[in-house]
């Protein structure tokens, strides 16, 4: 039995649920929006975790879940909590449920996609970059500073640079332009991350266990996720076959970060550099699957039901 955690209508979770059904695998939905009707408890005895999940009048033993897919949305923004003050009983109860789920994920037996703690590496991009580098990937030259003069020098050296958030907060990657140069003094308040812009082909690699799905992203945008806004045209996605050694490095990187499923952002430069920008531990793969037909959800489902020791 597989536990699917998140909002059931959200595309990645819905696709995995469908794939599990096609495989005749039984799944149970932990619907975040129904938090008020759920109870979760777990216990650890001699290093083994067990427990119970109760919802909709049914109770499930946690040890009967041989796999779990956690595609959790930020519970603070659930529609059911709209208008609630930060310390309302509903919010606190909802938070306690999610805390318990995430803490269980770190100690649960079985195929957990992904456990909570290893996902944290994505909360500091330059930290994660240092881990990525150990796996043989190149990285863009990066400067994090609060000194405008250093930014000027960095720009002069690379001619085109971008800036983006340091943390896991989602930000739009932008090219540093004349308007930014006018306000660069503001960085004195808080260091900002700048990177050389690298020409080349964007590639998103989804790794599921030992399986690899690579997608070429064709776009002129600095951040292809916002291609329509930045260049007036959506990115085009095409399946891509990676060289074996590069695919192996992607698998090793994913495992090395303690993940079983990841979305890896690469850029392949004309000079044959293979640059890795970041590893997303909870990739929204449905966009890529819808445009390429790559069976990523099926691979996740097969990973979840595979037998482990």
């Amino acid at each position: 039995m597989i536990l699917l955690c998140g909002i059931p209508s959200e595309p990645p979770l819905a696709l995995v649920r469908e794939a599990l059904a096609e495989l005749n695998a039984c799944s149970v939905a932990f619907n975040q929006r129904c938090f008020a009707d759920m109870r979760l408890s777990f216990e650890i005895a001699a290093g083994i975790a067990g427990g119970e999940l109760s919802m909709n009048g049914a109770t499930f033993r946690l040890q009967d879940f041989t796999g779990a897919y956690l595609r959790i949305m930020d519970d603070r923004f659930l529609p059911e909590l709209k208008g609630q003050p930060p310390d309302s009983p509903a919010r606190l109860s909802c938070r306690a449920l999610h805390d318990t789920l995430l803490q269980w994920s770190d100690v649960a037996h079985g195929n957990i996609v992904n456990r909570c703690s290893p996902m944290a590496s994505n909360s500091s991009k330059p930290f994660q970059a240092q881990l990525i580098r150990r796996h043989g990937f190149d990285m863009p030259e990066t400067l994090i500073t609060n000194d405008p003069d250093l930014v000027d020098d960095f720009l002069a050296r690379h001619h085109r640079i971008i800036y983006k958030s340091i943390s896991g907060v989602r930000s739009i990657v932008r090219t540093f332009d004349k308007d930014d140069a006018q306000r660069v003094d503001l960085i004195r308040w808080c260091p900002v991350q700048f990177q050389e812009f690298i020409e080349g082909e964007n590639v998103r690699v989804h790794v599921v266990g030992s399986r690899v799905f690579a997608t070429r992203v064709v776009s002129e945008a600095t951040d292809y996720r916002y291609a329509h806004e930045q260049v007036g045209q959506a990115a085009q996605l095409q399946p891509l076959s990676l060289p074996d050694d590069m695919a192996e490095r992607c698998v090793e990187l994913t495992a090395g970060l303690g993940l079983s499923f990841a979305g890896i952002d690469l850029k392949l430069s004309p000079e044959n550099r293979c640059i890795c920008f970041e590893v997303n531990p909870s990739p929204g793969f449905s966009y890529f699957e819808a445009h390429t037909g790559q069976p990523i959800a099926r691979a996740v489902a097969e990973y979840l039901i595979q037998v482990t020791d």
Partner: protein
Amino acid sequence: MWLVLCHSGDVAALWLYNGLRQRGLKPLQLVSAEVLACSRLWEHRLAAGHTTVDITLHDGRAIHGDGLRGVVNRLVAVPMDLWRRASPADRAYVLQELTAFYVSWLMALPCPVLNRPSPLGLAGAWRHQSHWVWLAARAGLRTPDYIQSSQNPIDRPGALRRRSPPPKVKTVLVIGDRVVGGQPPGALLAGCLELARVSGSGILGVDFADGPDGEWTFVGATPLPDLRLGGEAALDALMIALHRERRESL
């Protein structure tokens, strides 16, 4: 240069700073989180072959990552006093950015750093009690049965979640490859070292309950223990750990 990073109220850090000085560790500087937060210059560079960290404090003191020989890192959080007048949303964003930045530059230092940062904590991973119990069991330590429910009042301390509150707690310190303090039974030493290893902690405080049967049961662990509990032996172990060879460049 050797460095102790701590918050201004960290009495245990002041104690170890004085202890390390008396043992001849020099030049040794103590830099508080509050001073660090007001730094005049931050310059952190990353590239395929190298990583650098350069900081100029507001009083002109300079910290060059390449010039550091060892760091005792007891930073818990990035002080946000400079941002107290900002909107809550801006403050929350800046806190995440600065924390992510600190995790990276502390990780990038090429010298021994005790403890190295983790995305789960600046001075090493702050793990939930459930995770510590699970890890301790895997490390071979005797652990209590643990239970947690989404129905627990979330403002209660973790100790209330344990089925049997410990009668008396003893703290054992793991510093590098040494175990000091607490006088644990010999059989526990390997388990403590293993727990430090699997949790990635150069320094780890491990709490045990000394039960009526004489057996020590794991209670909890922290990457930021009060090293004074280990006395002179803790300082000796710290000296050894800090003098380890520079690690390979990341």
